[in-house]
């Protein structure tokens, strides 16, 4: 660039501010990154010198039944979570468009769960879902049975999905609502002239026009599902029978309880790779370029 010429005052200030962050990132981002890569190709137990083992960690991890189960649990979680969260978010978005004055109040009610404490709420839901808890009291009054939420792998996963959906529906709803605002009104008038019913209007007009926002929600949901830790750790402890053990829980257990950091590092690299692959696949399958002609 401007070789030979001294830098302007503006450039010096800019460079030193950016440099301050780069220095921070070198210590707390790049150096850990280097260690992660190093751990994945060595055998190490926190105290000794790392010994190079090549691809052995990878070969061991991809055949580890517990690791594969934890990835499968992410899929099971998504099967519950996606329909609940997307349906809930659409309800919030249409609800926000429907109510007039109280819009801010409704939005804040749904968003409070998103900004409040995940730890505290996980403890609250442990009580709410317990056999003697308020949810079971309600169900017992209606149908006369109690649901053993945490004794059955499928029910436990459903419970986790409900808690996480409770937390994120407001945020996803706001994303979809911002998309709804951009949909021109006259499109619906034209559809009504063509005698399109409400369901047809939803499936043929609204949802396709919300594609960008729905994709954003889908990507966020996938990222959330691979990052799950606090809720299963505190509500189910990963059980029953590892039915809610998530990759993050397994990485934590492997690194800090079983003291196998090399194995855990390999897992976290593979988990990130799988989440990218899933996001790429989802975009390929569902992303559309929507053009209003």
């Amino acid at each position, binding site marked *: 660039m401007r070789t030979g010429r001294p830098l302007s005052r503006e450039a010096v200030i800019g460079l030193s501010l950016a440099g301050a962050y780069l220095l921070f990132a070198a210590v707390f981002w790049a150096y850990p990154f280097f260690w992660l890569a190093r751990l994945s190709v060595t055998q190490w137990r926190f105290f000794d010198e790392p010994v190079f083992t090549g691809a052995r960690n990878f070969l061991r991890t991809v055949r580890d039944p517990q690791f594969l189960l934890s990835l499968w649990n992410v899929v099971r979680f998504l099967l519950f979570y996606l329909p609940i969260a997307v349906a809930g978010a659409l309800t919030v978005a249409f609800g926000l468009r429907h109510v007039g004055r109280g819009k801010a109040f409704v939005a804040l009610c749904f968003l409070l*769960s998103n900004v*409040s*404490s995940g730890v505290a709420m996980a403890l*609250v839901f442990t009580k709410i879902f317990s056999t003697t808890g308020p949810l079971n009291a309600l169900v017992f009054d209606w149908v006369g049975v109690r649901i053993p939420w945490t004794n059955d792998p499928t029910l436990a996963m459903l419970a986790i999905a409900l808690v996480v959906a409770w937390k994120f529906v407001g945020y996803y709803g706001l994303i979809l609502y911002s998309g709804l605002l951009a949909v021109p009104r006259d499109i619906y008038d034209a559809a009504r002239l063509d005698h399109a019913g409400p369901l047809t209007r939803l499936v043929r007009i609204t949802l396709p026009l919300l594609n960008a926002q729905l994709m954003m929600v889908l990507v966020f949901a996938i990222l959330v599902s691979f990052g799950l830790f606090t809720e299963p750790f505190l509500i189910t402890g990963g059980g029953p029978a590892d039915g809610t053990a998530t990759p993050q829980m397994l990485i934590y257990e492997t*690194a800090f309880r079983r003291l196998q950091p090399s194995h855990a590092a390999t897992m976290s690299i593979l988990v990130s790779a799988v989440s990218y692959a899933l996001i790429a696949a989802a975009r390929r399958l569902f992303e559309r370029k929507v053009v209003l002609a």
Partner: protein
Amino acid sequence: MTAGRGLGGWAATIGIYALALTWLYPFAWMVAASLKPTAQVYTTALFQGDWTLDNFRFLFATADTLDRPFLQAMGISALVTFSVTASVLLSSAFIAFALARLRFPGAKLFGDFLLLQMVIPTTMFILPLFVLVKQLGLLNSLAALILPSLMSGWGIYMMSQSFKAMPEEYFDAARLDRAGLWRTVTAVVAPLNKSIIAIVALFTFTGTWDNFLWPLIAISDTDRMPLAVLLATFSKQYGGYAGPVMAGAVLQTLPLVTLFVLFRRQFLQGMSLTLK
């Protein structure tokens, strides 16, 4: 659009309000349970029971003998959260200003680097960060909770997006006034970008106060734990004390809910900014 909706429209309005209030039920149940004797937590209706502050008294007075210093944990959480939030806001504002408004070689590359950092999940870094903090000899110290979060690439990026949208005239005026870097950022940029600063502040505060996995790994002594971790270990060991556990949950939630209610306007404005 609100006029002339008929009966179905009103039913939908009532339905959405009812659903919105249902969303608050876990908070109501938590507060109610924290104010009842443990024996009544599951046996009484939401607003019934013998109201008492005993659970909170138990947490602050008796829990010390169970090796659970809650008051101290709140102090640690507050100290860590305020340090991190202040540092992130200050550093983000200045670095974002540089990125958005100053011409320097490599500025575009710097922006790309921030984007790259944002797409790499932070959970991946927990284990190697532990190795680093261990090498620095900082395990089990407050520095382990504060230092790794002093700056935020996300905060810089979000603020710079907002700063870029400011009209150049403001900066012409600042230059005419011979305003330096400090005055330009604090007196010109910050007041005009309150929403995005509020969003970064709120998310940084919430994320730090409620951070669980990292302090769970980095801190092992109960008298150095932040509230989130101390509460979780307390619940694990003394889960039967439903009343005190819920009182602890209220303490953990209260600062976040208070901030959210205080800054609700800026929050909603800022959210619509981030969604563009």
